[in-house]
């Protein structure tokens, strides 16, 4: 029985001690965050300044509030009791005194503890004037019951950072295989036969932040073995057994606009003559394009070269060089 009583007393004492400890911590320090209005002000401005804070520790009758501000503000010593008003629930009257260049003290008479927002308006006949130099200036509030905190008034846009950047127009271009899986610089039709149309494809992958741009194409001329030139499409649907060489261009899309295939190269499934040696506009693109890193068969344009041979096509190794150039429009 005695052991139980001692145990209970011990537990009670532990609880009371911890409560007392917590209470003492609360009494020692309580942070508040006053608001300052206007929070931004021009330099050398003569205007009212309003501080509002909510006490963490209840303000009791006779408590004081110490308000301090940086020395850059002028007019602090000219302030009087009538130039500062302190209001809030349960505050019946206040007296402001001890005005210096950087502070004053307000003594509160209250009808009950003040636990809600307290508003301090600095400015009446006399006011504070903001510093001549731009800067971020702290106003601090400390109550005699242990609350304290500060906040800034931003003077002369010292809290404003103008961010400027020039984004130049850029163009990017790469030739990719037909699946947009790898870079390529060749389109290989392999060994051509009478029985089938030889073909190969690749993609023009263009990216830009420009409003519009164009792709031009120029070739080395005919698809040739050096002495014999393939017959060219006119445009033509190339079929096996009839010697013809040409290309089908399938314009893709762009992420923010449209792609227009130039008339001479637009023939649907028919192959077009693709042997111009003077650069000609192939695609005109309006709008920014941001194709995916790989596998983008939407925002890329497909070029397919087709060739068919006949019984009279000379043997040999046939080649052609095609150069694409991406330029901005203007």
């Amino acid at each position, binding site marked *: 029985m005695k052991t139980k009583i001692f145990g209970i007393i011990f537990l009670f004492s532990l609880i009371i001690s911890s409560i007392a400890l917590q209470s003492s911590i609360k009494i020692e320090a309580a942070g508040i965050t006053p608001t300052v209005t206007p929070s931004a002000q021009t330099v050398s401005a003569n205007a009212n300044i309003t501080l509002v804070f909510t006490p963490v520790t209840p303000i009791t009758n006779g408590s004081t509030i110490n308000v301090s501000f940086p020395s850059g503000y002028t007019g602090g010593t000219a302030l009087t009791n009538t130039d500062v008003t302190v209001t809030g629930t349960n505050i019946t009257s206040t007296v402001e005194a001890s005005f210096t260049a950087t502070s004053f003290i307000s003594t509160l008479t209250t009808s009950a503890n003040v636990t809600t927002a307290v508003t301090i308006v600095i400015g009446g006949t006399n006011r504070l004037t903001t510093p001549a130099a731009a800067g971020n200036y702290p106003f601090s509030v400390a109550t005699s019951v242990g609350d304290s905190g500060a906040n800034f008034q931003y003077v002369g846009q010292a809290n404003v950072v103008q961010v400027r950047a020039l984004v130049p127009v850029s163009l990017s271009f790469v030739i990719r295989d037909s699946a947009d899986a790898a*870079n390529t610089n060749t389109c290989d039709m392999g060994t051509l036969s009478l029985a089938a149309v030889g073909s190969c494809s690749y993609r023009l992958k263009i990216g830009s932040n420009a409003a519009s741009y164009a792709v031009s194409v120029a070739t080395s001329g005919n698809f040739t073995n050096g002495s014999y030139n393939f017959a060219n499409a006119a445009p033509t649907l190339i079929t096996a057994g009839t010697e013809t060489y040409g290309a089908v261009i399938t314009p893709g899309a762009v992420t923010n606009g449209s792609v227009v295939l130039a008339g001479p190269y637009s023939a649907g499934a028919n192959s077009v003559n693709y042997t111009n040696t003077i650069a000609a506009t192939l695609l005109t693109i309006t709008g920014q394009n941001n194709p995916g890193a790989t596998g983008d068969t939407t925002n890329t344009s497909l070029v397919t070269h087709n060739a068919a041979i006949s019984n009279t096509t000379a043997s040999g190794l046939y080649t052609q060089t095609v150069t694409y*150039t991406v*330029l901005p429009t203007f």
Partner: protein
Amino acid sequence: MFKKIIAIIGICSFIATFLFISHGNVNVSSQNQTQIRGLILSPALQEIETEPGQSYQIDLDIRNDTTDKTYNLIHTTSTFEAVGEEGVPVLKDFGPDDQQKTWIGYPEPLINLEPGQGKITQVTLSIPKEATPGAYYFALIIGETPKQSTDSNQVLINSSVGTLLFVNVLGDIDKQVSFDQFELDKQIYDPFFDSMSIKYKIRVTGNAFLRPSGNIFIGTQESTGAITLNPDKRIILPNSARQFQTFIPADHQLPGFSSETSNNLKSRNIEAVKKPWFGQKDIEAKIIYTDANQDVSQQIVRTKVIFFPWKSLLLVLILIGLLVLMYYIYKIISVKIKESKKSAK
């Protein structure tokens, strides 16, 4: 009970109607942020206005944005001409009489770029003292060096990118600009339900290129805002014209009236513009361009249009008609209910 139902139907129809009026289509789009790979060149376009005898160094930022390809690049220079009225450049070789063919130099004509490598490459522009005043154009191209064919029937493909350089050599320069065309798609607009399409063509004559700016005003600028005349800051070459089109979308769409909005015409230049809701107004266009470092303003064209909310009025009349119809339906139902109650008694 019937009274309540009819009241609820009336309220619902009002709400639906106002929701329909006040909400247009909302298009939500997302853009993927993946990296673009390939040969990247920046800036894409440059212009210089200078006295003869001056030299310039132009920096081009070139980058190999691939992970597995080494670029062996070569600088080349062409001139170009504008085809059509869209400002599409078509490359041309310099002619034998083109004095500007020797003005461009490359301290480093060949460049190798490893995957991920970037480089600032210099281009020099040297304008001789005896250069004839006027406009000159250059396409500064960086491209892959031609490859050798292998042992297969194949097409070798080279890629290149270029920047356009516009040079006005000062001296006896003549800059003239005018409107070739200024047309609206309608003469009477409902300010709430009609889009506006303004087509205009600006022509530059003389011997210098221009980048005209300016505005189109509906009524007065203060009341309606201004439309930017050349929103993409296009350059117009001498003795050529450029076609523009500005599209002011309708605030609302009515069923049966097709949306005329297109990506090309959903301009960035009309956000501040509000159509007057009533009255005859001037549509006035003003061009500004720079000449000898002075802004020259020319008030060129003006036309009149009428703003009248006829579709809006029609809609209000339809609503009133519906309300009247609902009232009469309510009355008929009420009478029938009373009659049925009487007969029941």
